[in-house]
């Protein structure tokens, strides 16, 4: 009759408790425990391009880096500021077209066009989305999702910016190593920069806007201004990605507005672990090569891809990194109830 019930008990490892405070620096083992995951990420991203076989996979890796940037900015906006922005394709498109256009029409070098595209593009995106900022949840998501389609239709219907052919050629990087290490370094800087930002005062205000914007308003802070800061930072990362793609592929065209750039970062974020910053990056570096591997399968690829996505949301909503962090910090065993 009475069914034996068990539950999983989780306890922090001793070393986790010890490394929480200042005492961590007392032994190499504890310093190692703290440093290992971070060093693993940094070294992993820096060494990965060296050990990959051939140009093809290096290009895939660079593309994965762009997806990682987008996933990071999606994660930052959605989980830290509470703006669910699924218009990654628009941001990429704006950045890509600015960089591509400057290079194509005025022959500026990538060293100039990329910074201009990053900050100018972020400014444009922020200004265009400024009127939408009062919207919340699914409505902000729908508006931002519509923007790439709108721009695409305008470019097509008006025959602007090279229309269907796009702008080509756009100057590439001197060699592939410059490109690939540029994106890797930017990804790393963004992860640690955003983490630091979220720990500052403004990060607390971001969290406040996400959880209870009325309370933030009541303490005399202009929430629209705070959202604008966040949006500018996030779109700057996306625009950099766009400019990078334009120069890396030597082409700026309508493919920059592909839905992939809106959907894939979300998938990466969900797979990697929402709200963890490093998780979405991990997710992007898993998903992008995976989808390249499955390219031969044709339509089945999309079906599998969706199955993975839905499966993760339903059965593992915490994502890979949260799961891994739990394994790293805690041990668990079954106890009788």
């Amino acid at each position, binding site marked *: 009759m009475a069914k034996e019930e068990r539950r999983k008990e989780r306890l922090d490892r001793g070393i986790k408790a010890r490394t929480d405070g200042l005492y961590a620096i007392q032994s190499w083992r504890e310093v190692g425990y703290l440093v290992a995951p971070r060093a693993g990420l940094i070294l992993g991203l820096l060494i990965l391009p060296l050990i990959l076989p051939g140009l093809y996979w290096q290009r895939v890796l660079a593309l994965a880096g762009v997806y990682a940037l987008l996933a990071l900015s999606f994660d930052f906006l959605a989980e830290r500021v509470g703006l669910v922005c699924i218009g990654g394709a628009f941001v990429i498109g704006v950045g890509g077209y600015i960089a591509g256009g400057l290079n194509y029409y005025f022959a500026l070098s990538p060293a100039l066009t990329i910074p201009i595209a990053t900050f100018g593009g972020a400014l444009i995106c922020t200004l265009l989305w400024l009127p939408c900022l009062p919207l919340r949840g699914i409505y902000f998501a729908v508006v931002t999702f519509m923007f790439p389609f709108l721009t695409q239709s305008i470019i097509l219907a008006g025959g602007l910016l090279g229309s269907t052919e796009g702008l080509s050629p756009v100057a590439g990087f001197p060699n592939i190593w410059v490109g690939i290490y540029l994106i890797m370094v930017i990804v790393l800087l963004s992860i640690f920069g955003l983490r630091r930002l979220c720990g500052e005062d403004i990060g607390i205000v971001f969290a406040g806007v996400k959880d209870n914007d009325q309370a933030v308003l009541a303490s005399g802070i202009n929430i629209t201004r705070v959202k604008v800061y966040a949006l500018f930072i996030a779109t700057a990362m996306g625009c950099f990605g766009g400019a990078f793609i334009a120069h890396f592929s030597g082409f700026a065209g309508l493919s920059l507005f592909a839905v992939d750039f809106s959907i894939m970062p979300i998938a990466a974020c969900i797979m990697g672990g929402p709200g963890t910053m490093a998780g979405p990056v991990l997710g992007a570096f898993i998903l992008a090569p995976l989808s390249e591997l499955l390219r031969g399968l044709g339509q089945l690829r*999309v079906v599998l891809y969706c199955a993975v996505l839905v499966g993760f949301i*339903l059965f593992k909503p915490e994502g890979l990194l949260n799961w891994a962090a739990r394994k790293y910090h805690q041990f668990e065993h079954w106890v009788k109830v």
Partner: protein
Amino acid sequence: MASKLDRGPIEEVAAVDILIYGIVNGMTFALFAVGFSFVYGISRLPNFAHGALYVVTGFIAWTFINSAGLPFWLSIILSLIIVSLAGVAIYQFVMIRVRGMPISEIIVSFGIALAILEGLRLQGIGGFKGFIGPGYVLPRFIDGVVDTPWVTIDLQRLFIIAVGLFIMGFMWLFTHYHKMGLALRAMAQNERAALMLGINSDRMANISLAIGSALAGLAAIAIMPLGNINCESGYDVLTKAIAVCVIGGLGSWGGTILAALTLGLATTIMSVLGGTMWNNVLVFGLIIFILIVRPSGLFGQQKELEERV
């Protein structure tokens, strides 16, 4: 269009043409949108699989008619039943777990939609050829055209108007006078209060998805005979449904119809003036404009404050 000999002055003909085809176009928009609007209005679930259900109905009906050889009406009824069950399955097995998390709801339902639409195009697995090509056409209810002094219109387009009006009227009566319809509206207004009055919210959400999917199916059966069945139209239907819902305001029947007719007329006029290229610009531009200027849509009143602004 047929010859315009022995008809009125050309401007008059063009105006009536635009009006009639605009109304038909508007009714198509309305048919696309009712199911989506119904589900979202009642259970707050953005069912992004709406377009996929629309396409699926077409293919199921086609299979019943052509491969199984069932009579037309029977296969329509069967496919509607199947698609409602699919809607229930989507809620029961998937959506129920993510309810209340908007972004997960969108991703999950969009994931299902992508899986269905791309799955229908799969080729070469188990000898399945994939539903691609112009061969997949649903039969019209009755073939024929109506000739008036100004315009020639085929019966199927008139049927679309009739079906649209019938659905609107039926749904309005159902949600205002039937006990279950009232329960659905109660849940839309205040889920907790409805729960306290003994309305099972999960069952109501199931019912709303079943009805919403059946409405998508009905739209498919009425509209698809005009062209062939293809998977791409699934995305198109979804976009148009969202456009109508956003512009008209969710949970408002009048708003939905009005927005659909406006969009229908506007796109028809647009394609006469500037070519169909600008249609998408118009639709997306309107959505963004309306959301920014009047976030609850032209006629939406429900939960305006806490949800949008």
